[in-house]
């Protein structure tokens, strides 16, 4: 009973190792860009340990924010190379998972999904980044909470309003937390303001919006 099973399993293993197939160093890469970085680049390295060449049929990224490039169209036996995946960070935040699907002419495993996991550091988390009053509302102040990201130290923030129709007051709560009270002078006119929030000793600027809106739409 045991001998045929082992022989069968061995034959499968041998046939798998003999066929043309790319061996990837890793199919998932985690990147930790700095706040100043505009792009995160992952290098997916491969080898062709088989006896026949492997040809790339297509390399396709999961979103328009990611590009993927092959160094060559065909990998000869014993050859190696890499696929470079470039993720344009833009104004994205948090953990971003993007994939690159690689199709080759390998008969048994023609599709490989490469995963680029990018952890984007966030210096300030502003919640909410939009405060509004309906026209005619009582002009009571509304609060925006600012939390400093774990990897950062911010002792003070500076807040300015683009419009004199809104006043702001910053309160430091400690433990990397601030409260911004936003107060409109009145709510009769449809006005808006961009609130600029800048951490001390930092070039990076964050924004919030304050606005007097018109009354809800009646169906």
């Amino acid at each position: 009973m045991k001998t045929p099973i082992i022989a069968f399993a061995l034959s499968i293993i041998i046939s798998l190792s003999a066929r043309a197939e790319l061996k990837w160093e890793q199919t998932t890469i985690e990147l930790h860009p700095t706040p100043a970085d505009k792009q995160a680049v992952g290098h997916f390295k491969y080898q062709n340990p088989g006896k026949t060449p492997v040809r790339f049929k297509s390399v396709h990224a999961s979103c328009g924010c990611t590009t993927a490039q092959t160094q060559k169209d065909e990998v000869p036996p014993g050859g190696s190379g890499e696929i470079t995946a470039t993720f344009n960070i833009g104004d994205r935040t948090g953990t971003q998972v993007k994939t690159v699907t690689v199709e080759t002419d390998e008969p048994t495993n023609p599709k490989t999904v490469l995963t680029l996991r990018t952890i984007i550091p966030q210096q300030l988390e502003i919640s909410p980044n939009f405060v509004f009053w309906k026209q005619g509302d009582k002009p009571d102040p509304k609060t925006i909470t600012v939390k400093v990201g774990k990897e950062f130290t911010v002792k003070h923030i500076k807040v300015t309003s683009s419009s004199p129709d809104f006043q702001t007051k910053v309160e430091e709560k400690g433990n990397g937390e601030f409260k911004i009270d936003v107060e409109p002078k009145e709510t009769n006119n449809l006005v808006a303001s961009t609130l600029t929030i800048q951490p001390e000793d930092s070039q990076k600027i964050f924004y919030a919006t304050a606005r007097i809106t018109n009354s809800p739409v009646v169906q």
Partner: protein
Amino acid sequence: MRSSLVRQVLFLAALALAPGVGEAVYFRHKISWQSAVLPSESVTVDQARTWGRNVIWVDARPDEEFARDHVPGAVSLNEDRWTELLPQFLAVWSPGTKVVVYCSSLSCNASREVARRLRREAQLPDVFVLEGGWEAWLKTK
């Protein structure tokens, strides 16, 4: 002989099943490539059309695709230029208005991400993801 072969095949199948089940259990909470959308947070083109003028269409696709064509009256809001585009969107939003976010197709993730940020960061209510995205819109045009 035959029953022995069947036993061997079953043994090998069970052997292959074990790591598969293990992986499914171990990775059940791992991040997926697409954010999940609750049924209450998505909308079909037909449903959205019944809302008439009480809706803002938000195009989460890259600038080039928005420039090529978009839902009439849609506002561009993508994560490439979120900081710049968000105030422009908030300038046209009104309380009581429903927001429908779309990207290229069923498989894209940008609309889910933009909708999530509008709900979480701007704390807007009534933000929906368009099922099937721009492709679905084109089919019912």
